[in-house]
């Protein structure tokens, strides 16, 4: 049993290495889909299909005034939920916990991910689904007095309890993870769950998406 366990571990480690052949990694994706955690979950919709275009049954509604800057048409598809790579995202009026996301501003991965609340899930002019997000505002005292700053490996930070009025369009691939939020009077503790989540986007999906773009 020990030898079998060690061989399995070494195989896992090898598959994680950057120099592992791409063909073998493709086999890993297939095996994960067949025997992985979500392999037998038939309720999961293909994430590629779901965010590239809305479902055929979706109906267009009038665009809310604050969403007008992201959508040129007067009618678009609005959603309450969106499932991507096994993770459910919701608008804040439907489920606050599922609407709390950490994302890269403008998709720039060299910047630090910031927290925000999904206000709308909508179909953009290019036909793909996107989020309209309210930023969680930073503290006016510039982070001073943040008790979490002393622990660099614990990804929590204090923010203002207020969310910005202005919306930002966020593509689904810019999202890093959900976050946990605990309110302390006029401030909130924001803890990124990217290290805790068991659901991550497969690199293959990103490659395919970039090819499609």
């Amino acid at each position, binding site marked *: 049993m020990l030898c079998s366990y060690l061989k399995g571990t070494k195989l896992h*480690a090898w598959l994680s290495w950057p120099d592992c052949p791409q063909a073998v990694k493709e086999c890993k994706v297939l095996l994960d889909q067949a025997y992985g955690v979500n392999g037998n979950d038939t309720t999961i919709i293909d994430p590629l299909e779901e965010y590239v275009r809305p479902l055929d049954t979706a109906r267009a509604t009038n665009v809310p005034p604050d969403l007008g800057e992201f959508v040129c048409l007067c009618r678009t598809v609005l959603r309450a939920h969106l499932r991507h790579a096994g993770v459910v995202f919701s608008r804040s009026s439907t489920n606050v*916990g599922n609407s709390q996301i950490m994302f890269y501003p403008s998709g720039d991965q060299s910047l630090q991910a910031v927290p925000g609340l999904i206000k709308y899930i909508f179909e953009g002019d290019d036909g793909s689904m996107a989020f309209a997000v309210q930023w969680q505002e930073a503290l006016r005292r510039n982070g001073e007095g943040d008790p979490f700053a002393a622990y660099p*490996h*614990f990804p929590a930070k204090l923010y203002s309890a207020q969310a910005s009025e202005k919306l930002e369009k966020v593509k689904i691939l810019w999202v890093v993870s959900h976050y*946990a939020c605990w309110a302390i009077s006029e401030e909130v*503790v924001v803890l990124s*769950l990217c*290290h805790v989540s068991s659901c991550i986007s497969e690199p293959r999906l990103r490659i395919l998406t970039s090819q499609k773009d």
Partner: protein
Amino acid sequence: MGKYVAIISSLFVKPCRQRREMPLSAVLGEHPSYSKKDVLKQIRDVIRETTMPSWFGSIPRNFSDILAGTIKADEWRSLINVYIPIALDSLWGGPPSKATLKSILDHTMDLVSVVYVSCARTMTLECATAYRLYIASYVGSLRHIHSTSNVRPNHHASFHVYDYLVLFGPVHSWWTFPFERLIGILQCLPTNHKFGELNLVCK
């Protein structure tokens, strides 16, 4: 991962059991630096009030109460990753905190950092070295911070996790949560407690 669960359990379960065996009037002042009752209340408040995504497993709101039942490994992981550090940091992390409480907080955060660093999805030598520094700091000051605690074989074994991180990479490839799940499935199977007799019956 089981080692962390054992360490975390020894930190919180044992005091909780001891607490239940003590009279209610002795709650205050039972520890020279802090009241366990206040700490437990803060942890329960954080569990109850924190907004979490739906995929995140729930924790009993009456954590540490006998009615809450046994806390499972995955629940201990949620507690040490999210609820306990937020609760302790909000209690003792501010400027007015006593030096003793700050040292207890720093010590606990060493353990929290150990869990975060060791569970990273990408493992580098720097991460593995950070893991070793944190676990050395945690075990090294254990007797100083918690005078009634002893260094256990689990603490020694946790130092070897550094070697595994270097040899096998991210812990997700070799942690034993799949075995925990299998044990959970096996425990739910109906049995008549007569093992090894299935072959005889089939014949």
